[in-house]
């Protein structure tokens, strides 16, 4: 790092919202050619700070300097003019448009009255080449993978001449392979003289790629350290404010009888293509079976088939020995299945309902909540208060709309509801996605607690660390089939990675 003036310097930025101080006198220096990670829990104030840098908010106090000159950034166009680009967590792309059309949107080059597509596409190819992005300028957005779409977002900022790139939780939507590729791209960007601010709460990535880390907790800068002088546990402690254990503490499993038996399962996806091709899998009582696999190998369809949300083409699913394939979701739920859904906003919660109404989403028709067709709101409220208390869901009241809770608390609420139904099998799909370290610890310990009570747990996750740390047994899903089974203590990232890419495990136990 050179000791010259920083490309971006934030001096004592303070931003207040009614009732909270989102940023409390935050100072930060970003040097040229540096990857500076911004680490903090959900709601720590990272996004507010970056929205200030990108001109979406105005700070109440403090100043911003770009290359040593004080600037006022009062709208995103100003930020772009100053060479700041933002890669948002949720992409802002027009699906039916091509890559080129998306990139030039809002600043279309003209040739007379016509759009000058060719020049733009050539410039995009050139940029893509320079930074190793390998993006086809004529591909349509809906035809390319999520990882590629993210690269289009990166290209968009580069095309607009950004020198300072802000990445907001860039890996949340990516597969492990895509994450590795993104890291490569980020290295390439800084090698070419760009500077990067990386917002994340994933410690592994920070250790892997960043040069400097600034830790924010409750709107305040806790510390700024060189990554080379830090360790994950130190960072986690600073971020959460207490000691965090990474090794998941658990006793050996004592598996019992199989609760869920899947035989020769064939399931089609929305487009009518077979995505599960004769899948076989058992989940036993008192064990956590981790299902590893790259996204898009049939995970979602498997979950939907198991929970009754998708039709089973052929094959058998037995729950406690009873056939449940193609039964309705309610019949399956009553058969003893609980499900922590992959997408908590789409499936897990009715966001416009109060917390108490959400807590009885699957049980509202039973006593004591339902009395002769009328809802007993006292009983519902009591139940909600109990769950909120037991699972430490932070909400102002049980009447609060689910929408206004943070992601971590929404997830806790869903887990509370699902566990409280006392299921025989718990299906947990990406249960820790988007959560911070503290919440992840909580969720994982809940899964293990369920196992210790003799429940069967099926854990589906793209996070290899989670699969290895939490599971008692790991099955790998590839192209709609289980390609192998391994024990977590006898495997590692590399072996699992290979299996996830389709090769069967040399040392692993084949499913009989």
């Amino acid at each position, binding site marked *: 790092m050179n000791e010259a003036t920083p490309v971006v310097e934030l001096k004592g930025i303070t931003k207040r919202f*009614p*009732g909270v101080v989102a940023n409390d006198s935050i100072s930060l220096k970003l040097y040229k050619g540096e990857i500076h990670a911004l680490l903090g829990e959900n709601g720590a104030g990272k996004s507010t700070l970056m929205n200030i840098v990108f001109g979406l908010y105005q700070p109440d106090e403090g100043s911003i300097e770009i290359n040593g000159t004080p600037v006022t950034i009062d709208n995103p166009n100003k930020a772009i003019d100053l060479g700041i680009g933002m890669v948002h967590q949720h992409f802002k792309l027009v699906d039916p448009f091509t890559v080129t059309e998306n990139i030039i949107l809002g600043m279309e080059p003209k040739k007379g009255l016509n759009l000058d597509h060719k020049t733009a596409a050539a410039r995009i190819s050139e940029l893509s080449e320079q930074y190793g992005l390998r993006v086809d300028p004529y591909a349509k957005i809906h035809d390319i993978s999520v990882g590629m779409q993210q690269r289009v977002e990166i290209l968009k900022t580069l095309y607009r001449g950004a020198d300072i790139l802000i990445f907001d939780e860039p890996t949340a939507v990516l597969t492990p392979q895509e994450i590795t590729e993104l890291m490569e791209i980020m290295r390439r960007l800084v090698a070419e003289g760009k500077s990067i601010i990386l917002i994340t709460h994933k410690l592994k990535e920070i250790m892997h790629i960043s040069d400097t880390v600034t830790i924010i907790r409750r709107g305040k800068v806790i510390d700024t350290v060189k990554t080379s002088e830090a360790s994950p546990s130190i960072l986690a402690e600073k971020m959460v404010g207490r000691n965090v254990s990474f090794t998941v503490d658990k006793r050996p499993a004592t598996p019992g009888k199989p609760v869920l038996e899947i035989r020769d399962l064939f399931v089609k996806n929305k487009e009518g293509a077979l995505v599960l091709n004769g899948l076989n899998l058992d989940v036993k009582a008192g064990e956590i079976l981790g299902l590893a696999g790259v996204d898009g190998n049939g995970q979602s369809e498997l979950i939907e088939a198991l929970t009754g949300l998708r039709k089973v083409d052929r094959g058998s699913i037995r729950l406690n020995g009873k056939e449940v394939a193609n039964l309705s*979701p309610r019949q399956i739920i009553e058969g003893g299945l609980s499900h922590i859904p992959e997408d908590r906003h789409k*499936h897990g919660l*009715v966001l*416009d309902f109060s917390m108490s109404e959400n807590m009885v989403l699957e049980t*509202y028709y039973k006593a004591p909540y339902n009395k002769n067709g*009328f*809802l007993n709101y006292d009983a519902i409220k009591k139940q909600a208060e109990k769950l909120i208390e037991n699972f430490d869901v932070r909400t102002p009241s049980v009447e609060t709309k689910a929408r206004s809770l943070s992601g971590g608390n929404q997830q806790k609420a869903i887990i509370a509801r699902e566990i409280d139904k006392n299921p025989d099998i718990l299906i947990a799909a990406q249960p820790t996605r988007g959560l911070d370290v503290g919440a992840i610890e909580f969720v994982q310990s809940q899964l293990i607690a369920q196992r210790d009570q003799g429940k069967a747990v099926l854990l589906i996750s793209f996070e290899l660390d989670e699969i290895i740390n939490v599971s008692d047994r790991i099955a790998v899903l590839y192209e709609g089939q289980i390609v192998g089974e391994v024990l977590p203590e006898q495997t590692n990232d590399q072996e699992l990675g290979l299996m996830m890419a389709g090769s069967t495990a040399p040392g692993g136990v084949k499913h009989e």
Partner: protein
Amino acid sequence: MNKIFKIFSGSATVSIIAIILGLIVGAIVMLVGGYNPLLAYQSLFTQVFGNTYDFGETLREITPLVLTGLAFAFAARTGLFNIGGEGQFIVGMTAATVVGIKVTGLPAIIHAPLAIIAGGLCGGLWAAIVGYLKAKRGVNEVITSIMLNWIALYLANYIVRHFLLMQGKQRSEDILPTASITIQSLSDLMNSARIHWGMLLAVLVAVFFYYFMWKTKQGYELRAVGSNPNAAQYAGMNVGRNIVKAMFISGVFAGLAGAVQILGVFHNQTVMSGSPGTGFDGIAVGLIGMNNPFGILLGAILFGTLTYGSAGMSFGAGVPPELIRIVIGSIIFFIAAQGIVRWFIKPFYSKRKKEKVL
């Protein structure tokens, strides 16, 4: 009472401001046209409250609007855009007319309720077609309900012409006196303003709406399906069945509106050259009432008062009665464009928030 107030506080502010803004827009248009807006609004008011007859007739104007407004709102609460209230209204009218004329030999205590039930039921079934097509075939409810509006109109005219026509007239015979729901004693008291039991029914339906939607198991399901069908399905609810159910109940409300118009007001059905529009006005009432049953009662009162009072405007101030449609249109515009209204009331809000922080 406190609870009821809580339900539509917040949204009520927006409605009230929108109404005031709408009246102001109307006043500006009148000024531009060279009329005196104060005199116009004053004569509107006098027209409505000036004498008992007009007051009774205003109630008559309000009643079907309450029911069609509730019909729109009920579907909207379940995430459905039912603009077929018009067709369901016409079907309800026709069913009530048929029962009112063709079913004979029943005492009034049975005949009148039977005709009302027939109207509600047929309106409900008419709307259930839309729900069924959406649930089973995924057809957008807007398309089917618009089409069914036209089918209902011509079907109704066909039935009146071929089975119920009064000799030499473009209307049906009168319904039997046993099917009438006119309250003669009150009507006499108010200089034969057309007062009928449907007015009480409309209020009861609003109360039913509230209890059903927010207090029962089925209402809970409907709201869950309305705000997040995916989560409802995940939780084991039958989404398709709830869509059909919501459309059916919505259609019942609109059908009842049609039935009480026939049985309480007209006592016969004309061959219609165009849609009566009560169902469409229900959409406006639903929007003004923010899809809340008590808001709709107030919205219908406003809508009905303005409509009936508009005749007074033309007598008193020479303002063409169509102008009141500009006022109503503006009110709906301001409600839909809530951003504008919030901008108007922002200074008050920010003051309050600051106090809270301190």
